[in-house]
């Protein structure tokens, strides 16, 4: 699944796939814009048959989820785990540590989503 996701990202961004790893940040490292993420979502649906919800796949409502969690006194990790069931607890804690550095979305998050939502 990792290779398939990397191939899609490389194709959409017109990049060398060997320059992309699981740890690559889509926005911070690759400069992906919203239009690029939309195309990656459609390509995952079309080529891999994975039903995609862009907000969850691209963690687009991450900061909104965190603000609501704060308002309702819910632990941040609990709120994120509920919203993004495809992410492991370790990844959620890494995201919480990484928030100040900019958009947190990594290739591994797309792989996790695709694996979690893969049609059985």
């Amino acid at each position, binding site marked *: 699944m990792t290779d398939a996701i990397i191939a899609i990202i490389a194709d959409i961004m017109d990049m*060398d796939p060997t320059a992309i790893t699981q740890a690559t940040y889509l926005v911070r490292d690759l400069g992906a814009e919203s239009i690029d993420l939309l*195309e990656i979502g*459609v390509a995952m649906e*079309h080529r891999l048959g994975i039903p995609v919800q862009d907000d969850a796949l691209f963690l687009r409502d991450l900061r909104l989820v965190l603000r609501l969690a704060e308002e309702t006194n819910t632990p941040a990790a609990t709120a994120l785990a509920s919203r993004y069931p495809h992410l492991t607890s370790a990844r959620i804690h890494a995201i919480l540590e990484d928030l100040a550095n900019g958009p947190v979305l990594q290739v591994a998050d797309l792989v996790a989503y695709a694996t979690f939502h893969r049609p059985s």
Partner: protein
Amino acid sequence: MKAVLTGIGAVTPLGATLQDIHAALKTQHVPTLPSPWGFPIAPAPEPNLRGLVGRDKNLRYLTRAGQLTLAAAIQATAHAGLKRPLSHAHLILGLGPHLEPPPPQALWLLSAMPATTTAVTAAVLEIRHEASTILGACAASTQALIMASRSIAEGRAPLVLAGGGDSRVGERAVAAYAAAGVLTSTAMRPFDINRDGFLPAEGAAVFVLEHPAHAAARGAEVLAEVVGTGLAVDGSRLTAPSPEAMAAAVRAALAGAEVNPAELLVLAHGTATPAGDAAEAAMLEAIVGSTFPGAVTALKSWIGHGAAACGAMELAVFFAAQQAGFVPGIQGLCHPCTTLPLLRTPRPWRPRWVLLESFGFGGIAAAILLRLT
């Protein structure tokens, strides 16, 4: 002040560069393939965009026609010896509608819009001034050349890239033309009494046009001068040829030029449809006379019908042949339907004057007169 032509880029069924087209013209072979949709087609070779552009994520929104157009535009700038950025240049492209099903993309809208080809081409060439998309059916690329020449002559632009691209070899395009009853099931025979339609094709050609002073200041080689242009429309006839519009465009292009008829080559539109060629031949006979001492050729017989791109492609094929000093004849012509001096075999000749004609659905007629240097 007239516009001068200083660069050519082309991708046609005969080849992906001017050199390849030139070589293919010597083989006397029209690159025709059978298609799964019941009619022969003339596809173009791959234009090697990766080699020309490098990596660029916006290329994902280019249709086949867009890819061919961008390749031709880059070739034209290289041929003219121009360097990017071309921030003071204008870009005018004659393009057509995208008839094939949209690709599986979120923003398939961008792929469906002809203006995306213009935008991406402008971005790659770093053109920042003006960019226009002309949708004049099969006259579109000739219309683009005319608009470019007029912009230069009127002092609006010192440098314009103009031409067009199209692709009509896909299933939907072939079906659309088949429904109109204009396709041959064998081979194109322009101006032959047994002609039965055209070969759908694809390709692109882009020219660099400049103000003479701009070309002189940078020491550019001038290939030709645009001497006259003519545009006309007869919107009352959407598919039938309009002899009046054709004649008006051709007369306007020839007006005022002191052309020696013996030194004039006509690059006819020549779609090889029964009605189209009959109307064009009658129009030409009326304007140049049945004892016309020049010559008429029809280069669609070599490359098929490039639709929106046809005029620019045919002009590029003419210039490719001129590199070896000849004019290609009309392929497949056995029994002429007119007394006009049709070229049936290649003629070693450097005509002083060239009249390019393109006519499109909607009664759109475009003609441009060049004086070769």
